[in-house]
C-alpha cells in the first residue's frame, strides 16, 4: 500500500533480496561512502575486526580504511563534537551512539550545538551530520539500555528525527539523512537488526532514497487509523489483522520521519476513519503521541468519533524482569484494546 506520494519501498518488486535491517543500514553506509568521499563514520567499536557491537558497520573499515571509519574512545561528547566540527567544515559525518540512553552523556553537543549552530550563525554554517543510535526495550538490558527518547529530540529545534520500520525504509531514509544538509537523528530499534524472520524485508539495490516527510500507509483501512513508527508499526499491522477478523479495518500509517512529520497524510486518513490511535514504545507521558494527539484534535475537532487514543510505554523506567519488561512495552493487545475504546 502506498501514499499518493509514491516512494520506492512501497513499489519494491518482490524479487528484491530480503535482508535484515542491519544489512540494509550497512548497504546505505557503504553506498554513501562510495558516492561521496566527504562521508565518514565515527563511533565506538565500529571498525574491523568486529565491525561494531551489532556488526552493523561490518566490512566498512576494510573497504574504506580507518581514516574514514574511525573507532573512538568512550567519549560521546567528543564523538558528536567532532561530527559537528567536521560537518561545518564540509564533511558528512555519520556518528554512532551505541545506545540511545547514552545520548544523555552528549546531549549538549546534539541540542546546544548541532541543533542550534545553523540558526545561531544566521545560516552560514550548516551542520550536515547524522547520529545513528540503536534503541529499544525487550532484550533484558534494564533501565539504562532500553529507552526511546525521540520526544526529547522532537522538542528540540533544528534536529530532524527518523525512525524506520523496515529494512528498505531504513536504507532509503539513511541515504537521504546522510545527504541532507541538517543534523539528523536516525533511530534504529535493536530488536529489528538481525531478526529476518520478523523484521526482514525486500531491499532495492543501489542508491534508492526515500524523501523525508512522507509517511507510508503500510495497510489501508476505513474504520480506524493506527499511527506509528519504527518497530511498533509491525505491532500495528498485527493488531490490524486481529481487528480485521472482527470486521474492523484499520489503516496503518507509518510516519517514518517524525521531524519533519507528514501531518497531511495523518489528517487525511483520520478525516476518513474518524478514529485514531497513536502507538510508540517511548514512555507515554509527554511522548510524541501527545503532540500527534493534540495536532489531530486541533485539525479535526468535531469530526472525530472518539478522542485520539495513545498507546505507549509505561511512565516508568524500563524494568529488568522479563515479565515486567514485557508489560512496560506496548503490546498488540494494548493496541487492539485502544481501538475498541474508539468504537464505544
Amino acid at each position, binding site marked *: 500500500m502506498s501514499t499518493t506520494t509514491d516512494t520506492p519501498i512501497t513499489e519494491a518488486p518482490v524479487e528484491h533480496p530480503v535482508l535484515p535491517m542491519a544489512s540494509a543500514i550497512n548497504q546505505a553506509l557503504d553506498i554513501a561512502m562510495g558516492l561521496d568521499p566527504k562521508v565518514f563514520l565515527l563511533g565506538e567499536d565500529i571498525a574491523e575486526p568486529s565491525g561494531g557491537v551489532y556488526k552493523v558497520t561490518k566490512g566498512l573499515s576494510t573497504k574504506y580504511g580507518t581514516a574514514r571509519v574511525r573507532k573512538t*574512545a568512550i567519549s560521546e561528547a567528543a564523538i558528536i563534537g567532532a561530527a559537528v566540527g567536521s560537518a561545518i567544515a564540509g564533511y558528512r559525518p555519520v556518528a554512532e551512539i551505541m545506545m540511545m540512553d547514552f545520548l544523555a552523556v552528549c546531549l549538549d553537543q546534539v541540542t546546544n550545538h548541532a541543533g542550534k549552530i545553523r540558526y545561531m550563525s544566521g545560516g552560514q554554517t550548516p551542520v550536515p551530520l547524522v547520529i545513528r543510535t540503536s534503541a529499544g526495550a525487550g532484550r*533484558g538490558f*534494564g533501565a*539504562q539500555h532500553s529507552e526511546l527518547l525521540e520526544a526529547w529530540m522532537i522538542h528540540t529545534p533544528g534536529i530532524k528525527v527518523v525512525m524506520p520500520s523496515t529494512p528498505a525504509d531504513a536504507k532509503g531514509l539513511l541515504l537521504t539523512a546522510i545527504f541532507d544538509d541538517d543534523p539528523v537523528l536516525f533511530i534504529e530499534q535493536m530488536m529489528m537488526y538481525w531478526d529476518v524472520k520478523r523484521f526482514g524485508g525486500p531491499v532495492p539495490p543501489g542508491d534508492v532514497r526515500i524523501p523525508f516527510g512522507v509517511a507510508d500507509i503500510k495497510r489501508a483501512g476505513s474504520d480506524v487509523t493506527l499511527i506509528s513508527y519504527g518497530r511498533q508499526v509491525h505491532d500495528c499491522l498485527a493488531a490490524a489483522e486481529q481487528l480485521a477478523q472482527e470486521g474492523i479495518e484499520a489503516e496503518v500509517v507509518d510516519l517514518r520521519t517524525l521531524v519533519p512529520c507528514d501531518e497531511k497524510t495523518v489528517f487525511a486518513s483520520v478525516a476518513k476513519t474518524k478514529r485514531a490511535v497513536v502507538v510508540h514504545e517511548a514512555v507515554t507521558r509527554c511522548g510524541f503521541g501527545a503532540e500527534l494527539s493534540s495536532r489531530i484534535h486541533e485539525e479535526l475537532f468535531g469530526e472525530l468519533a472518539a478522542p485520539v487514543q495513545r498507546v505507549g510505554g509505561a511512565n516508568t523506567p524500563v524494568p*529488568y*524482569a*522479563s515479565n515486567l519488561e514485557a*508489560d512496560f512495552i506496548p503490546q498488540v493487545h494494548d493496541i487492539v484494546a485502544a481501538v475498541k475504546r474508539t468504537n464505544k
Partner: protein
Amino acid sequence: MSQNTTAVDRPDAPDRDTLLAMFEIQSRIKLCDERFRSLLTSGQIQLIYYSPRGQECISAGWGVHLRKDDYVVTIYRGLHDHLAKGVPLRELWAEFLGRATGTCKGKGGPMHITHPESGLMVTTGIVGSGIPIANGFGIAAQLDGTDQVTVVNFGDGATNIGAFHEGMNMAAVWKLPVVFVCQNNLYGEHTPMAMSTGVEFISERAAAYGMPGVTVNGNDPVATWKVMGEAIARARAGEGPTLVEARTYRFYGHLMGDAMEYMDKEERRLAMEADPVVMYREWLLANGHATEDQLGEMEEVITAAIDDAVEFAVNSPFPDESELYTDVFADDTKAATR
C-alpha cells in the same frame, strides 16, 4: 604473581587469615562466574552476562580492607565487586535472574545490583557515571565526620569519558575519602586501550588533579592487597583520594557470546595460563599458608552455597505485575501509570 614466583614466599604478604580471606573471595567469584557461564552455555538461564573472570584479585584486594559500613560503587561488569563487598549469593542470583526475591526485586538486574546492607550502593550501566556518584558518598562521610571510605570501580575505557575527569577533580579539590579503582583489563568493549587512550598507564592521569596515582599488577593478590590497603588507609585518615590502576585481563571478552575476534589469541592464551586465582592457590600451598584440605573445603562450601543460591533463584517467582508501577516515586504520585 607470575608463574615462576609461585614457589617463592612473599615477605610483604599479610597474615594468614587475610591471605585466606582473599582466596575465599576470589574463589567465590571464580566459582560463581563458572556457574553462570555453564548455565548460560547449556541454555538453562538466559541473560546478558559480563564475566569478571580474570579480575578476581582486584576486588579481593580491596574487599579484605573494607568494613561493612564502607561504600562500594561499581559497573555492569560487577559480579566480582558485588561478591567482594559481601552481597549475599541468594539475592544476587535471584536478581541476575530477575526474580522477586532478588536484591532489587528483579527490577534492576545484573547491571544495577544494589544492596545497601552490604554497602554495595550503586551499580551503573553507564560508563564512567559511577565516579561522580562515588564522590557523593565521600561528601556524606566527610559531613558526617565518619571515617567511612568509598571504593569506586571502573574500567580503563571509562577513563576517557568526561565523568571520570570531573569526578577526579572534585574528589581531589575536596580531599574526599574515595579510592578510584581502575580495573584495567586492556580493552573497552572491542577496542584495545592503546587505540583509544592517550597515556600508557591510567595512573599517569592522577597528576592532572594533584592526586596520587599508582599502577599495580592486579593479578598479584599480595601487591594489590598492599596498594589497596595504603589507598584505603589514606582515605580513612582524611588524607584524600587515590587513583589505583590495577592491570588485569578479561578472560571471556566483553560479554557472553563475544566472538573476541578483536583480541590477540596468544595474548589471551598466556593470560589464562597465568590464571591469577589458580596461581594464588598454588602459591598458598607451595608456601604452607594453607593445606589442600583447607582450600578444598573452602571451595566445597562455596560450591554448596552457589548450588543453594541457584536453586533459590531458579525457584523464585517473577515479580508481581503491579511492581511495574511501584518505586518510581516514594509516594503514590499518580505519575507512574500509562
